[in-house]
């Protein structure tokens, strides 16, 4: 029973630390805020069920949560029809209104989001995990179940692709 209490405490802490990150990750896969919140919740509930089964000790709860979120998002995408670019761009409930920033800044960020949306899913995932969530290459490798070298190569390709997009837009 002590172990369950310990696990519960650890799990709640993980929610406090990583719920935003998992939400963001789901959002950049699904592009639906409400759905992303549900998937985020589902990620945590599934993780807790796994912990209760007491099969294997989870070394990195963060990596585990990302892996669960990745699988849930993939299943969700397979279940529903794929989004077209037009549909993605029409989605209005991407993020809550934030009036704290200047309009210029706001437009810069919106543009970036639009660019990220157009990237291939794998490139999007890698860039989000690396630059937004600050995950290490080894952690990304664990989440996506690829060797770290492969992940490094893929990250650099994703960067190149985004750069190309930027240059294209500037032109």
């Amino acid at each position, binding site marked *: 029973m002590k172990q369950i209490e310990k696990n519960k405490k650890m799990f709640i802490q993980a929610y406090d630390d990583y719920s*935003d990150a998992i939400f*963001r990750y789901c959002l950049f896969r699904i592009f639906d805020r409400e759905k992303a919140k549900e998937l985020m919740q589902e990620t945590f509930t599934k993780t807790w069920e796994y912990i*209760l089964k007491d099969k294997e000790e989870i070394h990195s709860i963060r990596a585990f949560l990302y892996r669960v979120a990745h699988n849930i998002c993939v299943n969700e995408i397979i279940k529903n029809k794929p989004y077209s670019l037009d549909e993605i761009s029409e989605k209005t409930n991407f993020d809550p209104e934030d009036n704290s920033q200047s309009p210029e800044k706001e437009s810069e960020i919106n543009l970036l989001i639009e660019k990220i949306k157009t990237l291939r899913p794998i490139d999007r995932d890698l860039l989000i995990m690396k630059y937004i969530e600050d995950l290490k290459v080894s952690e990304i490798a664990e989440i996506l179940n690829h060797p770290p070298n492969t992940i490094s190569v893929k990250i650099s390709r994703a960067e190149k692709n985004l750069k190309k997009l930027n240059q294209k837009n500037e032109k």
Partner: protein
Amino acid sequence: MKNNNLKELKNKIKLSNTEKAFYRQKILAFIDQKTPVESPYSKKSNNFYLNFLIKKHFVLTSLIIFSFLSTSLFVSADQADPNDYLYPIKIKVINPTQILFTPTIEKKNNLRIKQIDETLKDFSQTEIKEKIKEEDKIVIINSISINVNKINDEISKEINKKDKSKSLKTANHLKSILSSHNIVLEKIKQSKNEASNEILSLEIDNSLKNTENTIHNLVKEINQENDSQIDQIIKEQKDEIKNTLEKIEDININEIYQDRTTEIISDEKSDFEIKLTEINLNLEKGDQELKNNKKEEAFILYNEANQKLEELKILIDSDKEFDLKIFNKNTKKEKVESKIETEIIDNNMLNI
């Protein structure tokens, strides 16, 4: 790569505080719903009881079979005689176990004496019919030696205690049993005309000496008691003698001579009557010493009388049981006649 903008994305795209709290509650509720309630039994014991319940039929059946087999073995071994394959189990396992479960030292000693008596009876009964295996003889001798030593040790430990009369009674009883069985063994030896039981006889002699030492020490201790205590012990001895005499007198003395003679010739004395005479002499002398206020001497004489009476009773029972003609007649007459002959020869030698 515009890292600042990406960092800004991180700050921009997140759950609001309300949303975060809302989903936190939902997840907590989920945790409480899913978390199992601790059972009052530990996981380990749950598994134990579960396994026991599953296997209980096997366990119960095995226990019943084991109990049945043990009881059967116990009963069979308890009734075994020398030369039976279960006899060593009776002597080495069952008898000591019975002693182990006896509560007090006095009862243990009484049980040991009873076992010695039964063992020697079993021996005699079997030896009359057939030859006993050497292994069984060794088992019997060892058992008697152990029991006698144990009894004498226990009595010696109790020697400083107040109530010595019980210890004396136990020691007297042991001595009577040993001497009477010694006589029976001698008769068996004579009837079979073989000396195969010398070692057992030697062991009984040893045990007798050991016991006589113990009795001697006890008597010495008792004689150091005050007058009222010696009076009490003498009274108890007299009561015992009276009881044993009554038991002997109940027996028709003629039964001892059944099929041996048609009438008892008055001047032919049997072993039985000689013993009775000796006992009577002891009692008379004891009474005399008591009148002269020599309580210690009186006590010793009464004690000897008590021992001989008890020995006599055991011999009477053995005579009936073994049909060995333990009580011969004419022995004294023959001794007297041979003595006269010797005197005549000596006188004649002198005259020469």
